């Protein structure tokens, strides 16, 4: 350049000076694992569908959600949302109401009648799913999406498993359940209801290339309780099942429920709705030790259910029963105290947990069971090649969402097994912590508590207890998500670079680092709210 000193210099001439050579580290855009996604038993990409919903693209958000889980409206009502328990936003103000947005999307989809298209290519493989609970239905949905011909066989009248015959309709209205299951039917999944499978091997011989077992845990656990002949002792699962079938069980005026799980809460609340004046839960241990979800305990208490913690049922008579008080020993285990109390009661409902009924394995028991459940390998396959299992019958947490996750995982592995390939899950263990976020940029916006029907009013009938969000609330809630570990295009990096070394590629396309000029200062990384850029060694 021929320029006299101290005279006009050409515009843009400094672009010849590639300051990128100063750098020892460089920024890199990454996709990291948000804690919510990591905690979802169904493996939902929560951050992703919230991001899509944030600008009102509800259908696209719903479609992204159902790639992992076909039941957002159900989830939004019965899932215990472990995602929210780990949401990073909780440390800023309150966790994002993921579950309520999920429900909004699910309900919105039902309202709009969005459907899931059948697969475009048929694989030619036939797969049998035994059990139409959440695990079986989720497997059927995913297998069908992959082009397989799927038959679901179930012993009951209507599909849903415990979602229909366990969870009462004041928590999960049947129109919602039916709507989400019907979508799976409409994809071409065959349902054979009222068909109990007595021998799984026989089924394999019908021409199915693989079987997914998802029979749940249908047998109620028993406890030996001395009782007079006239004592009325019922089983919680049977009571709930009867109510669903329209058969009103005879419970009497005062009902005692024995157990501390969700079934105990649901059956006590159901008893009240059926007209019992008093429903009392008797449980051996303390509230914090009770397996029931705490929200459900709260809702039960709000409805006037009484609970006797640290108590056992000793003897049952026709109109009363004897309760023994327990006390915690040094190790925190309940021990009998010898102190008794008489409770007036017309019936006792046992809700002591469920066991798996393995009778369908037939005589040739070449599928291993252990401790009352069926172990599976990392591909969800049992010890019998081609027979996979999931849901309540395998060793895992017993929730609807876990079952849905099992169904998805099994479907992906069954598909691989059928095609003689291996399903490789891409593990992303790069979990985003709260400290890694730059929360300065997020507004303080507390989460909207879902309106609940007045506790006293709701206990009188089976109408739904927890209300959903309306559109503006749902949008507000979705927009509280901090997008942990994934760029949400806030333009901070693009704006804060002192060297203009970031190229904005346009909506949805993200950004690129111009390494000719990036000096590696790291400001873009520090100021990224969502921890979606990292410094990595260069050269």
């Amino acid at each position, binding site marked *: 350049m021929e320029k006299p000193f101290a005279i006009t*210099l050409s515009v843009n001439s400094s672009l010849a000076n590639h*300051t990128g050579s100063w750098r020892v580290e460089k920024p890199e855009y990454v996709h990291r694992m948000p804690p919510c996604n990591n905690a979802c038993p169904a493996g939902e990409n929560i951050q992703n569908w919230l991001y899509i919903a944030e600008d009102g693209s509800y259908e696209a958000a719903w479609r992204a959600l159902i790639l992992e889980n076909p039941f957002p409206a159900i989830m939004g009502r019965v899932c215990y949302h472990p995602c929210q328990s780990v949401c990073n936003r909780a440390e800023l103000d309150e966790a994002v109401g993921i579950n309520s947005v999920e429900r909004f999307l699910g309900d919105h989809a039902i309202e709009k009648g969005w459907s899931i298209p059948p697969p475009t290519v048929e694989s030619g493989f036939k797969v049998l799913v035994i059990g139409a609970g959440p695990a079986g239905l989720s497997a059927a949905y995913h297998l069908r999406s992959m082009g397989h011909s799927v038959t679901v066989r179930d012993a009951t009248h209507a599909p849903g498993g415990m979602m229909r015959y366990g969870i009462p309709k004041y928590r999960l209205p049947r129109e919602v359940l039916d709507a989400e299951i019907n979508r799976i039917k409409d994809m071409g999944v065959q349902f054979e209801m009222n068909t109990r499978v007595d021998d799984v091997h026989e089924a394999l011989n019908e021409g199915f290339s693989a079987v997914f077992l998802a029979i749940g845990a249908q047998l109620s656990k028993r406890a030996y309780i001395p009782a007079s002949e006239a004592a009325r002792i019922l089983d919680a699962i049977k009571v709930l099942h009867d109510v669903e079938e329209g058969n009103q069980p005879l419970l009497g005026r005062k009902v005692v429920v024995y157990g501390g799980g969700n079934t105990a809460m649901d059956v006590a609340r159901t008893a009240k709705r059926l007209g019992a004046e008093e429903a009392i839960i008797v449980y051996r241990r303390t509230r914090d030790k009770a397996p029931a979800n705490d929200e459900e305990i709260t809702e039960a208490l709000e409805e006037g259910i009484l609970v006797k913690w640290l108590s056992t049922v000793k003897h049952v008579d026709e109109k009363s029963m004897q309760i023994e008080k327990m006390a915690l020993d040094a190790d925190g285990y309940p021990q009998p105290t010898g102190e008794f109390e008489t409770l007036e009661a017309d019936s006792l409902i046992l809700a002591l947990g469920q066991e798996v009924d393995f009778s369908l394995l037939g005589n040739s028991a070449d599928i291993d069971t252990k401790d009352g459940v069926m172990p599976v390998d990392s591909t969800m396959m049992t010890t019998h090649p081609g027979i996979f299992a999931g849901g309540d019958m395998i060793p895992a947490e017993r929730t609807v969402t876990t079952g849905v996750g099992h169904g998805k995982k099994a479907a992906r592995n069954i598909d691989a097994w059928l095609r003689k390939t291996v399903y490789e899950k891409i593990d992303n263990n790069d979990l985003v912590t709260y400290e890694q976020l730059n929360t300065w940029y997020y507004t303080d*916006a507390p989460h909207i508590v879902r309106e609940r029907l007045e506790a006293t009013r709701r206990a009188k009938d089976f109408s739904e207890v927890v209300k959903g969000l309306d559109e503006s609330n749902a949008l507000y809630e979705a927009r509280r998500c901090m997008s942990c570990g994934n760029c949400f*295009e806030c333009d*901070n990096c693009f704006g804060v670079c002192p060297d203009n070394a970031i190229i904005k590629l346009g909506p949805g396309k993200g950004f690129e680092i111009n390494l000719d000029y990036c000096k590696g200062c790291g*400001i873009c990384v520090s100021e990224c709210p969502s921890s979606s850029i990292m410094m990595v060694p260069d050269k």
Partner: protein
Amino acid sequence: MSAAPIKFYQVGSFAIGNRLLSPEDRSIQSDPERTNALTSGHRACQGCGEALGARYALDAAMRATDDKIIAVNATGCLEVFSTPYPESSWRIAWLHSLFGNAPAVATGVAAALKAQGKSDIRVIGQGGDGATVDIGFGALSGMFERNDDVLYICYDNEAYMNTGVQRSGATPPAARTATTQAVGENPGNVFGQGKNLPRIAMAHEIPYVATATVADLRDLEAKVIKAMSFRGARYIHVLVPCPLGWGSESCDTIKIARLATQSGLFPVFEAESGEVTSSTPIRHRVKVEEYLKLQIRYSHLFSPNRRDDVIDLLQATADKNISRYNLIPDESGSI
């Protein structure tokens, strides 16, 4: 469905852009077509706050004037790193004369434009804190007094950085510089000296005076645009952390500016005709210590012995700012 009818936006609301906002409501810096008054290839240090502040301010001035600006730059880092012969990073009409005369040269440019009837072309004077509060101070005061039609922007990095971190009239008390070493009983810069130029500018009762930092881009942009809506002398004082001179991590430049505001040490406000008209409230108040401890120029306050006496004096300065500029509305002001 578009985001248009929704009155709130939330995800990253304080960020530079926000896809939930309509493009015209986003910051100028979020625009991929922004003018980049100061472009790549300049030789500022990694993480330079001054380079960032200058681009923020001048891009906003260009937006406000349809790109019709002329900038007069005092000697200093900004001038040196942007125009190492034979290269220039400026994409605006820009000129440099001396360390001490930028306000006077800017006055002259404004007078020349007026004589030519080119009232649409606007003049910006700019320089570091040394150029502004010390050597160019007389010229600047004259420019204010005559109410010349110039927006003067001071990029305050609190010392003479270009010549090796010497103390200026804007260096804060207790800070270590090459000429205020961390030795003796009262290490670092002395208390009770120095000049508060925004207040001095206000005393001239010029149309507009504002302070800003690189930590709040939207605020800075709004102030530059507002300044361009006035004729006459205007002054904006921008805090621009300097990783080299302050001994901070290059990645912390914006964070440090943010802590300066959130501690109350650097009050962000605007004034018209000598009266404060608004101040930016503190959102998440921090103790001054949070700000100080990220900078080696204050490390003698923490080791070998912790100097609570000095830290308390700095805290008192911050507290005074908080009450003086009402930085925490509806609160008494103590942590």
